[in-house]
């Protein structure tokens, strides 16, 4: 028995992991229950930053991620968009990742077009699309948006878009929301947008678990709120739903909370694996000493 675990083929671990994720997804998907969520301070800050803005404020949503991190960041993007809609904010979508454009399209199609068809393109939201150049783009648009964005993602000249009238740079935005999977992302937004204009640009962000530790140094001065990984998404989602969800919440707005189920079981597996690894290590060492 011990020998089996000592030389455990890692494929058994893979199988355990697969089951730990697949079974909860199946069960939760079938019975449509989610675990209760207790929002912590960083998610509450994000919620308040958006919620405390007067209705109809201008919000820049920068979706800097790709399908690779959709699992973590998609629910955040959904919740951010929904929250802005409910607050009647004007949404300006941009992307610094080439594939971020598709992420914007997803949000627009899944949420705005599907559930809020009364919102009009160019008046309530605009998709400025992707621009290459990474942090260079941020540096330019903080002072001059039109230098890079002469058209929106559909090729319409920005001058012809009603909600772009009078927008010269992103200092005029009331809030910048960044959903970030890496470089360029929240760090660059902090460095090149918030740092030079600390009292003009306010930023909140949602990021992947990997990035979160790197962004803690910027909290709270440059970054008042941060959603870290699916847990942060789930906390924020629960806040948005508690206030704006109503009675019958569509399943697509509960994605993060649903996904906390497999998360929990898989975490317990990880914890079990770490303990098991150490038990094996200590037993092995004791036997080694005896010999």
């Amino acid at each position, binding site marked *: 028995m011990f020998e089996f675990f000592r030389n455990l083929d890692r494929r058994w*671990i893979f199988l355990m992991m697969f089951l730990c994720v697949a079974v909860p997804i199946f069960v939760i998907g079938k019975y449509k229950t989610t675990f209760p969520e207790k929002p912590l301070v960083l998610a509450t800050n994000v919620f308040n930053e958006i919620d405390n803005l007067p209705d109809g404020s201008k919000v820049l949503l920068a979706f800097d991620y790709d399908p690779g991190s959709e699992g973590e960041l998609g629910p955040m993007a959904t919740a951010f968009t929904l929250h802005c809609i409910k607050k009647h904010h004007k949404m300006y979508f941009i992307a610094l990742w080439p594939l971020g454009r598709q992420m914007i399209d997803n949000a627009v199609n899944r949420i705005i077009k599907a559930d809020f068809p009364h919102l009009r393109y160019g008046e309530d939201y605009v998709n400025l699309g992707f621009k290459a150049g990474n942090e260079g783009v941020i540096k330019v648009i903080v002072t001059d948006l039109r230098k890079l964005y002469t058209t929106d993602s559909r090729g319409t000249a920005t001058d012809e878009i009603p909600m772009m009238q009078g927008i010269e740079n992103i200092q005029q935005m009331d809030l910048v929301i960044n959903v970030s999977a890496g470089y360029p992302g929240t760090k660059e937004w902090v460095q090149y947008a918030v740092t030079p204009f600390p009292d003009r640009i306010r930023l909140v962000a949602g990021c992947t678990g990997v990035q979160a530790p790197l962004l*803690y140094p910027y909290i709270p001065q440059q970054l008042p709120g941060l959603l870290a990984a699916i847990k942060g998404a789930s906390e924020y989602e629960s806040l948005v739903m508690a206030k704006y969800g109503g009675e019958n919440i569509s399943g697509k707005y509960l994605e993060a909370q649903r996904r906390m189920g497999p998360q929990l079981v898989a*975490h317990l597996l990880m914890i079990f694996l770490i303990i098991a690894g150490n038990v094996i290590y200590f037993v092995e060492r004791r036997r080694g000493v005896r010999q």
Partner: protein
Amino acid sequence: MKRTAPLLIASIAGFVMIVAYFIPKTQTWGEDVSVWFDILAAIAFILGGGNLLRVQLKKISDRRPGWGYALITLIAFVVMLACGLLKIGSHPNEQYPAFAWSGTYNQTGTPFWWMYEYLIVPLQSTIFAMLAFYVASAAFRAFRAKNVEAILLLGTAFVILLGRTAAGVFLTDFIPSDVLIENPTFLQHLVSTLRLENLTVFLMDIFNTAGNRAIMIGIALGTASVSLKILLGVDRSYLGSGED
């Protein structure tokens, strides 16, 4: 000439950028150069793509083992490239229906979009998802309490893992929290920090921040030093031999 000219170019270009950083009017040069770089990188696709084609064609023509896979790569590459560059199936921009080329290359419904949506997206996210398996096996194998360093590494990971789930919060729920206390004392803070969700934040806030700051400062110094060495011509391995 073949040898010194590139070194001169690198040095001068670099020092100009440094000087430009301080002059108000030239501070945007960095962005201009970034745009140029993107153009250059896009042009360089010809080199990379050409090499890719050459390698695959060679595999096929030599009938080397696995040449069938090379054929798959080749076909996938050529079809995707043709669909995208020629904007096959793409409708013109709604505002300019007369301009056949005015549509975007990745419009929904085009073959290019289809291949992106049903080939790249699932492949990309599944490869990424394999990490879930690898973190598990790495945790099992590498997180063993061999010495103080390893104990700290695995202990922190353990606490964070536990603290980010409902289970961890439940586990330490009996510890009094300082949130509801007005003007908590030092001891109350200390005790409250033992709650797993607070311990997570504490570790991230203090220890993680400290470690990351030092790493970032080190990286900044390292980057600056490597850059300077290249500009001074001390480190020139990137240039090759200088022979033709």
